[in-house]
């Protein structure tokens, strides 16, 4: 049995697959348990399937099923945190941090993977990442898990430099793609967005290399 436990904490069903599923697969291959704490049901998502099969009121049910399927592919557990899509940045940070601190202690997490606040593009990403950092900061320094943060914004390296951890996830690419495709309502729309940009190859490259910054806590 591994004495490690990895907690992935992102706000939407599919963030885990696009952002960290290669790394998740690597941990699972090493026998490390991984749990995804998913902030919301992604009920305000814009992608409704292509062709459209969901509507605003049914999207959350689809996305729950999709995440269950992706979790099966990745061999991880999922727990929902119960927040509402698009509203995380308006929740009191102290309250969210307290909630997260309880979860992180409960799971005895050794590594927490979340978004890099301020460099994660979606306001929900930034808000939940900031709450995770605050939660871990409040823990005794001996009990703190490592916090690995995923940055997404186009210009982030100019400001925060090179990431601490870079995984070439080529060996896990098939499984990453399977996890992404499990998100039926989202995968098409997101992949076509990626392919429509001027920096298409750069965006695809980002999917194949998962990169994380470690948060450095001052005592």
């Amino acid at each position, binding site marked *: 049995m591994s004495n490690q436990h990895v907690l992935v904490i992102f706000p939407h069903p599919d963030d885990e697959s696009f952002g960290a599923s290669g790394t998740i697969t690597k941990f699972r291959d090493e026998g490390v348990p991984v749990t995804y704490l998913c902030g919301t049901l992604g009920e305000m998502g*814009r992608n409704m399937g292509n062709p459209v099969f969901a509507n605003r009121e049914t999207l959350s049910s689809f996305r729950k099923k999709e995440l269950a399927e992706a979790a099966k592919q990745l061999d991880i557990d999922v727990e929902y945190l119960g927040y509402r899509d698009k509203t995380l940045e308006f929740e009191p940070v102290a309250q969210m941090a307290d909630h997260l601190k309880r979860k992180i202690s409960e799971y005895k997490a050794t590594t927490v993977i979340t978004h890099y606040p301020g460099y994660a593009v979606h306001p929900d990403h930034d808000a939940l990442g900031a709450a995770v950092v605050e939660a871990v900061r409040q823990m005794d320094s001996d009990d703190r898990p490592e916090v690995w943060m995923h940055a997404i914004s186009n210009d982030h390296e100019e400001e925060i430099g090179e990431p601490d951890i870079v995984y070439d996830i080529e060996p896990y690419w098939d499984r990453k793609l399977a996890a992404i495709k499990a998100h039926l309502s989202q995968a098409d729309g997101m992949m076509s967005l990626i392919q429509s940009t001027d920096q298409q190859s750069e965006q695809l490259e980002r999917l194949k290399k998962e990169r994380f910054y470690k948060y450095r806590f001052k005592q």
Partner: protein
Amino acid sequence: MKAIEQEIVQNKINDFADKDVYVHLETTNGAYASHFNENAYNVGAFIRNAKVRYQHGKIVSTGGSYRVGLKLDLGWVYAEGVTDFEIDDKDRLLMAGHDREGRLMVALEISETPFSNEADVHE
């Protein structure tokens, strides 16, 4: 959802007139708009479960898409770019406009009962 059938939608709008109804109104171009295109702007707005009572409402078309306006005692509810509709099993009128890739751009939904609010974890 299916393509708007104007008469069916108009009849449903008429059914809800002069009743207390809940409205979900939303427009968005997504949180990633300016991430994938630096010339784009991220804009969006939504209001969920606004309780209103409208005197009358109308769905109007010019070519491809539709506009819907609901006249309140003290104002208006308005949506442009609606293309699809559904009257769901809770007898709610759901309308939305999608882009070529099926992404939602605008939504207007009317119901006599509130729309779901907090994410239901124990469903």
